[in-house]
């Protein structure tokens, strides 16, 4: 599942929060831990490999806007 970078970071923060919550069971903690480590690895990889995505906002002749990816 392709997740945005910010989405992954947000989920990672939530996982860490849940792990630090005393109410979490051991079984849940184990699966949260797994998820957390996977997310951290994915974020790390994205930071190393990502390419800057740029879009341009253009007014349409019929009104409204379009957003298109551009390469600069």
């Amino acid at each position: 599942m392709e997740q945005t970078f910010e989405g992954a970071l947000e989920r990672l923060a939530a996982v860490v929060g849940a792990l630090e919550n005393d109410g979490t069971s051991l079984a849940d903690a184990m699966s949260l831990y797994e998820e957390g480590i996977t997310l951290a690895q994915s974020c790390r990889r994205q930071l190393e490999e990502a390419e800057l995505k740029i879009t341009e906002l253009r007014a349409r002749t019929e009104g409204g806007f379009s957003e298109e990816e551009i390469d600069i």
Partner: protein
Amino acid sequence: MRIFPDSSCKDGNEDTGDDVVIRKTTKAEAQKLTDDDGPAMTIPSVSELTRELADLLESSFATVVVQGEISGWNRAASGHTYFTLKDDRACLGAVLWKSRTLKYPIKDGMKVIATGRISVYAPRGQYQLDCTALTPVGAGDLQLAFEQLKAKLQAEGLFDQQRKRPLPAFPGRIGVVTSRDGAALRDILTTLRRRMPTVRVVLRPCLVQGATAAEEVARAIGELNALGDVDVLIVGRGGGSIEDLWAFNEEVVARAIAGSRIPVISAVGHEVDFTIADFVADVRAATPTAAAELAVRDRAELVDALSTLERRMSDDVEAMLRRHRQELSYLLRSRGLARPLDLVRSHQQRVDDLTHRSGLGLRAALVRTHERLRLLEAKLGALSPLSVLDRGFAIIERDGAPITRSSMLASGDGVSIRMADGSKAARVE
């Protein structure tokens, strides 16, 4: 001898009919030179005559102040500006070298006071004003208008420090308002790529100089606000003359920045002075590159933050396993516990699995946990009711439940005796 004025002069010069004699030669002598082969008198070349003219003019007019109207204001690719100063009867060609900076934007038709010196440009036989300073005659008005706008906006509180919003630490998307072809955009993108390539960018290109620029910049800010999902704006342009930057002193731009829901970083590439946009913005950057550096952190910081989170997670899990081990030890003191080893084994397997997968420098922490689990297992093994059986003890069970007191049994009850190698049925006497 007549001195011809700048040929670009549109008014033209009236033929006054006066001749200005420079060379100290009498008409008679001049006549004689051209008549016959008189005494060997050196006749000056054009360059030599021009040289004399230049010396005379340049020394006599080494400091000049003149007022006139600007026409033909033209900034060449070299950065020097050529223009003409005129009134209704005469004109004077002039040049402003690019190193001279202006305080106010100059346009054709403006009345100005120019300071400089007269120089002669020999290759074209022209004199011109080498301009060192130019001030609009209405400069007082222009300055006044600027100061009035600044005071008005300041009184409204638009420059207040409390109004300024903090920039998001990790913006998801950055909106950029600048010209599509300028160096500013390239600098911003290069810097973002280097520091945080995971950030997304939406560009709303517009003119950043000229009469319509201020309106366009203001509109662009509004559109990015309306678009949504934009976390910070960079609004600006590269360096240029004061007239080039003037759009960022206009009220409409100031109001658009003040009204922006999204925090704004102003990046008007004018190192020393502040434009009104700079005062209103949430953060002012000296250059577009600086703006991009303010907008995003360097990814190394984020990588460090990730390492810290990973460490916290492993610490949390370790602490949990420790707590659970303690709970288990407590539970084991009471008998009748069925299969404690399985519970520990499944967790141990999971930890093994994760250790194998992690590769993030957590091995030490997990190995420690692993070791503790092994010790736990050994301890459990020793405490396990099942190993007690190995030592010859037996468990008496009735209907599957263990009997712990003889008072629980009555004569004739059927029981099951469980020993290390199996069970046997028995009856109480």
